[in-house]
């Protein structure tokens, strides 16, 4: 019929699990035109990866295609045998995976892995293949290709591994390239570099491509057309300009309004949910800050195994090199930086989880840095600084019910209150974070990601802290859940007056939440100031490059002109 490169029609897939047969895809249809870049966007469980794996015949054994077609090059690839599929895969269509490091064979030089693919599909003398490998690396703008070709994945950075992954996928000049969350887990600046390379490479070759991502903003920047998926179905399929100007499906609309870069005020994020109290008038900050740190330093030994049981710690890695900051009561401060910039180490020193090498930590003007972390755990001041952790699943003890999880810090830090008050406190904390009381007897594995995040926040709020340190509390959540949690945090701050230190890699999120922003780079604070100023008029080069790298949704007025 059409001149589509890939035409998927009515694709249905189901999984056999312990709890019976679960449909993963329900009648998915879409097309990719030659040279087009299609974005498949959806939250976890939407079936976007399953779609890709079905087309490539890479579904795991428990999955089964129950219906539909995927026409590629005039043939239905869903009905091809393994042998025929193997001729296509890597040669006509290929894929770039998430987690670039684990997607490569850890004990084979990366050049040899690319050579394996070329030798499989276009047999040639070794010298010719080697030249093609080097050429593939050069096209990914990899410097010193000869040296990189003989490197192992563990010797390369994540971004470099992903460039290798793309080089490998393009090595035999396929007509269709699928990228499955290719930059998830990479830093924003790396993400921008990898995505630019990816786009340039597919454009230059006229390769049709599919970008699978959870990030609507990322898809909007690179794709021509976007397919939105929800629970195994395609709910919207439209060109980029149209989807942002006139989203038709309610789910797309909701997804758009959940994306932090789509709005300027936290109140506008999914306005129909989680109402936020109006900001109280800012009290003049006269009293001492809740928390002040001065000249905090921490370095780690890059320990190598020594000859016997001692270690030679000659080299040390400076994680935090002399940082000072102050947080006023009720204030929200954002701490932004990429992985390895020292923001986690800094937040843990502030929380008194690790001991700084140097520097002072003052809580309400009282120095607490001389109290060893192990002892601080049992001091009355402990409850003043609480923390919310990154991964909601990992931050809950699998053997504690929701009630136990919230009650435990109360029992430890406010021991003389009795059981009646304890229950009251737990229920109040649960109510504060919008957790139904019926969930209190449940265990973590019976909760959704958003519910777990709420439990983590309730646990921290139950002891009525003055400062809440939030370590990337939403980075493991889907964007629609993230929006709700962000609003919840804002409401808590405005109602309870708890100061917040929000640690994140995402400037867009921090901008909505915080009064002030600190940007960290290589263990130093390189820029700080009011949120609007840092975001709109960055002073430091690093901040500028960070801002430039962040994918942003086109504003509706721009979208119309795209």
């Amino acid at each position, binding site marked *: 019929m059409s001149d589509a490169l890939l035409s998927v029609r009515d694709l249905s897939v189901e999984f056999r699990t312990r709890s019976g047969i679960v449909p993963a895809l329900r009648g998915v249809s879409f097309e990719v035109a030659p040279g087009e870049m299609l974005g498949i966007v959806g939250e976890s469980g939407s079936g976007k990866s399953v779609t890709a794996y079905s087309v490539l015949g890479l579904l795991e054994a428990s999955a089964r295609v129950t219906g539909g077609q995927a026409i590629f090059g005039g043939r239905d690839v869903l009905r091809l045998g393994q042998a025929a599929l193997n001729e296509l895969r890597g040669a006509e269509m290929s894929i770039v995976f998430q987690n670039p490091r684990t997607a490569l064979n850890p004990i084979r030089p990366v050049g040899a892995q690319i050579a394996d693919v070329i030798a499989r599909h276009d047999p040639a003398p070794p010298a010719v293949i080697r030249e093609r490998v080097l050429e593939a690396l050069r096209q990914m703008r990899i410097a010193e290709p000869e040296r990189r070709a003989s490197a192992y994945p563990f010797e390369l950075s994540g971004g470099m591994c992903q460039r290798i992954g793309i080089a490998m996928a393009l090595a035999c000049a396929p007509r269709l390239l699928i990228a499955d969350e290719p930059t998830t887990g990479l830093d924003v600046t790396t993400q921008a570099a990898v995505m630019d390379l990816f786009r340039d490479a597919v454009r230059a070759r006229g390769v049709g491509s599919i970008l699978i991502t959870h990030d609507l903003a990322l898809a909007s920047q690179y794709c021509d057309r976007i397919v939105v998926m929800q629970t195994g179905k395609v709910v919207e399929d439209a060109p980029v300009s149209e989807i942002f100007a006139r989203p038709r499906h309610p789910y797309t609309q909701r997804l758009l309004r959940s994306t932090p870069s789509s709005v300027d005020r936290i109140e506008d994020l999914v306005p129909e949910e989680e109402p936020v109290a109006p900001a109280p008038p800012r009290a003049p900050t006269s009293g001492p800050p809740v928390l002040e740190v001065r000249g905090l330093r921490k370095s780690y030994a890059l320990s190598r195994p020594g000859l016997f049981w001692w270690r030679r710690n000659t080299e040390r890695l400076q994680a935090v090199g002399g940082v000072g900051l102050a947080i006023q009561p009720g204030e929200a401060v954002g701490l932004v930086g990429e992985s390895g910039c020292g923001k986690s180490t800094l937040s843990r020193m502030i929380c008194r989880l690790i001991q700084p090498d140097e520097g002072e930590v003052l809580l309400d003007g009282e120095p607490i840095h001389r109290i060893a972390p192990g002892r601080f755990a049992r001091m009355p001041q402990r409850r003043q600084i609480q923390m919310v952790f990154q991964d909601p699943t990992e*931050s809950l003890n699998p053997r504690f019910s929701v009630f136990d999880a919230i009650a435990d810090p109360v029992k430890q830090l406010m021991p003389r209150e009795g059981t009646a008050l304890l229950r009251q406190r737990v229920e109040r904390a649960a109510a504060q974070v919008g957790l139904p009381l019926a969930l209190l007897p449940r265990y973590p594995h019976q909760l959704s990601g958003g519910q777990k995040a709420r439990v983590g926040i309730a646990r921290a709020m139950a002891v009525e802290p003055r400062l809440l340190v939030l370590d990337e509390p939403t980075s493991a959540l889907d964007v629609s859940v993230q929006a709700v949690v962000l609003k919840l945090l804002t409401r808590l701050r405005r109602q309870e007056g708890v100061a917040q230190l929000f640690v994140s890699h995402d400037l867009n999120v921090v901008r909505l939440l915080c009064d002030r922003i600190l940007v960290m780079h290589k263990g130093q604070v390189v820029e700080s100031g009011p949120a609007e100023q840092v975001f709109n008029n960055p002073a430091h080069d690093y901040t500028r490059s960070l801002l430039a790298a962040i994918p942003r949704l086109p504003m509706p007025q721009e979208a119309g002109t795209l």
Partner: protein
Amino acid sequence: MREKLSLLRYVLAGNPVTLLALVMLAVLLGCAVLGPSLVPYDPIATNTSVALQAPSAAHWFGTDQLGRDVFSRVVVAARLDLSIAFAAVLLSMAIGSVLGAAMGYFRGWLDTAASRATDVLMAFPLFVLAMAMVAALGNSVSSVVYATAVINLPFYIRLARAETSIRRDMGYIEAARVGGSGHARILRVFLLPNILPSLVVQASVNLGWAVLNTAGLSFIGLGVRAPTPEWGIMVAEGAQFIVSGRWWIAAFPGAALMLAVFCFNLLGDGLRDIVDPRSRT
């Protein structure tokens, strides 16, 4: 609770072998508890007039060179063999898991020193080490228990250390510290209960090894001594009659030994399925 029961039912339905192991375990424990009051003959009473008789209706498993009833001895021996194994495994699990968890949680000098000691212990073939220890501690049942406990210790230390290392930097441990728990409480309330399931799987497998080890020691004349009915001794006594075709003296205690170890191993596999369905092998 109901969910756990249904999971148990699911696992047992999908894995009848585990069910079989549970039944075998029940039989073994039955022999251990009730054996001495059930058996038809006194297990140590000699009666040379019926020596070396092949299995018959009167003597199901035949008689040995002193005319003792092999069946009675095999059944009665279950108590001693299983007691030694359980005592040794409990001992090494208790010490090893606490030590290993502390090593994984605190790291530092304790970890370094204890890891080195474990390495040294593991450098000896474990059976040889047990042999030397029983010889050094004296030929008694308690020596066998201690020796078996010591050679099992490294497994618990390593397992508990590894499992703790995975968890020590997880959010819920940091959350516990922020929530006012000291190190001791974190170990006791947050870490040990979470690593317990894997330790129990290890214990089940180790029970099998402990039985093997005990029998092996008494087979070479260490630890439990004749005329006490014990599977290893009985196999040793029967060994000399194998070449003349009187298989039953060694074969029945040997089979009992095999069944016991087999049962514990199957049980370990079954438990592993319940504890960690992903590692199903």
